[in-house]
């Protein structure tokens, strides 16, 4: 009977299809966020991180999105915001900032804090406070009290970066600072500048996506 066979076939297809769909579904959620990037260990309880911020990722399905990049100990720039650092250590951070200024929603974050000495160094010069309107992004780990504003690049400057990851030859600001990690665990980090143009409050899209303007700091016992 064709109807019955059709039914059996349909049932089989449904069961198999359903199983595959459920598997895919779980896999979609299991799909790891970006690959973790290990901080370079440069001494006993001292590590170094190199990051850059770019105005546009330039490729992939979110090519227009603003994003962070991180550098592996092998000096390769990868599109990731999962950073692994050792516990109870000093972390020297260098951020190459290629994006222009947007301005802070809450001006309070114009003052670097949670960093050693309460200062950050912009192109080598110590800065204790940044005019909030000049901020392009911030690097903030609220649970560690770390918040560092990153001054934007002058929009008139020649040789703007157009292709991520950017190189040192292109217009940028170099910001360095040092913070101290606590015990092992996962700490979230994010940007507080409403830098997602085209979204309400400048806070949609990349501002709410891990791998762009949000990430996790995985502090590991060394």
């Amino acid at each position: 009977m064709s109807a019955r066979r059709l039914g059996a076939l349909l049932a089989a297809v449904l069961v198999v299809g359903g199983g595959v769909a459920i598997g895919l579904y779980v896999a979609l959620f299991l799909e790891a966020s970006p690959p973790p990037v290990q901080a370079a260990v440069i001494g006993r309880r001292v590590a170094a991180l190199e990051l850059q911020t770019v105005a546009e990722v330039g490729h992939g399905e979110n090519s227009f999105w603003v994003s962070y990049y991180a550098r592996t100990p092998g000096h390769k720039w990868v599109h990731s915001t999962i950073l692994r650092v050792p516990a109870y250590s000093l972390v020297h951070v260098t951020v190459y900032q290629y994006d222009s200024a947007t301005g802070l929603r809450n001006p309070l974050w114009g003052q670097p804090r949670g960093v050693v000495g309460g200062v950050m160094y912009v192109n080598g010069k110590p800065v204790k406070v940044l005019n909030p309107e000049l901020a392009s992004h911030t690097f903030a780990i609220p649970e560690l009290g770390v918040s560092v504003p990153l001054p934007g690049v002058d929009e008139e400057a020649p040789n703007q970066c157009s292709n991520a990851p950017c190189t040192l030859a292109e217009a940028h600001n170099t910001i360095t600072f040092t913070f101290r990690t606590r015990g092992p665990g996962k700490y979230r980090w994010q940007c507080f500048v409403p830098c997602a143009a085209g979204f309400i409050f400048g806070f949609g899209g990349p501002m709410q996506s891990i791998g762009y303007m949000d990430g996790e700091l995985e502090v590991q016992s060394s």
Partner: protein
Amino acid sequence: MSAAAIPAAGPVREPWWRGLGRFNVFTGIVLGIGGYLIGALVIGHVLSKGIPAQTETNQNDIEFVCGILLGIVGFLVGMGFLNYPIARLTGAAPTLREKEEKGIARYFTLCTDHKVVGIQYLWGVLFFFLVAGLNAMLIRTQLLYPTEHFWSADNYITLVGLHGTMMMMMTTSMVLGPFGNYFVPVMVGAKRMAFPRIEALSFWLLPVAGVVLLAAVGAKGFPTGWTGYANLSVQAKLGMDCYLISFALIGISMALVGFNMLVTVYTMRAPGMTWTRLPIFVWSVIATAFLQLLAAPVLIAGMSLVLLDRVVGTTFFMPFSGGSPFLYENLFWFFGHPEVYILALPGFGLVLEILPVFSRKPLWGYRLAVAGLMGVALLSFFVWQHHLFVSGINPDLRPFFMFTTELISIPTALVFLNAMGTLFRGKIRFSVPMLFALALFFNFFIGGASGVFLSDAPSDVSTHGSFFVMAHFHYTIMGGLVFAFFGGLFYWFPKMFGVHLNEKLGKLQFWLFFIFFNLTFFPLFAVGMLGQPRRVSAYSPSLQWLNDWVTAAAYMIGLSFAVFVVNVVYSCFFERRRPEANPWHSKGIEWQLPTPIPVDNFERVPVINASPYEYGTPEAPLVANLNPSHAEVVAAGG
């Protein structure tokens, strides 16, 4: 499967694949995908030109929404929903039904037989219930650890939103869909629903909505939970559009179901089916249908406004541009609270339907039960701001909303009284449906009592937005509706499918479910009181052991559902125990009909002689005369 396999009798069959080309779910899917592509790549593309906020952000809501909307239209066209309206527009005469297939194929087409729609609903609802339940397992897995461990924070929020939204969407149809469509016409002595095509449409919107919602997974998810609060929803990623459209679709489906049920019960009752002989389940359907008809349009409007904010750029919910997030909260909860009773009331009706059968007594206090159901329905429109006690909206109205909310416990308590009176001096049988029905009262009492803490404005300050709320409504919806649903399913399965579900497996499922349901959700009251807000992916490490306990118990609930799946497969395909015509010895009219129920239900319009609860009254006539003479019909007021 070839054309050679022609049955001995009957018309010549076409090869089966010819059927694929003719208005069924297959053509629906094809046209749906085509509609999406045209909508997104052509219409949406043109409309969004020159709007940088759409085209230069990798988030083109216009394209996406146009695609989904046209895809839905395409699906419905492919299903054949436009055939009749277009025919009518060009002047065709009205007809009652379009077509009906035979065999399994009719479950995949626009079928206007209310029993087919009921079974379509049953499997549709169960499928999405399974998916949403799986989401719950994934959520609990994450909460094994106090910070993100398995899924990232954005995936976790999407999971929470999917679980909540899908459960809320599917459970609105959980009783009214399968049992309402299947049994209400039978119970009132009608041959069909009042508007069979609308009935089919109300079902087919459900899988569409489900698929659209699931598509959010591929569209970067949505971060708002099932409440979809603006203006977070305006800020959210593409998946939000899926939430808005699918919830609006469910709103349409709900309003249509309510509309159809009310007309059916109002106009199509058989002669002799007076309002006081109506089975209590039908009364609960009436109460629910009123809520759906009047509350769902507000939901549709609310979802549309958010969609306009996202797509067209209106400012309804933008606080710094003259809009107000409070507007959304009011609109949403004006729907949202009746929604809660849309979930609860059919459950009450179901258990009150089951209790008399298994205690072999009339339903105690029938009129009171009706009054209780209607009272709950009415009051539920006047309580919505109890969700907003700490929001800063109308704080001076808190005593009023506290009072109206607590008033609801009076009609709810009537249902308890009905149950207690019905059990009194009965001859109770602990069959599986009865177990589920009884468990509802235990669960719902805890749910209701915790509701008092939430309705109390001072106490609500601490419990609002915490896991306490979450435990509370799982006690009422899962402990109420889902238990009632399984009770009803075990009760009516023999009638619907001609197969008796295995009792032992049923009891195993019940006890697993009941015990671990309580072990899961009771500790969550404490979790909430101790400071864990809802929908968090990270919590205080001091609460980890409680959360781990809950997760372990939740897995066991999952196991109980696995037992159910095994039971269905085992009973239908291996055991195949044919039930007696009336296995529970019920007096309900549906059990007086042959199994399976013929396509027109009754050969003639029956005459109803008695209420379906005439237990203990040997002199009472049979509930219905299925083969009445003309004189009897006229005498009964037909």
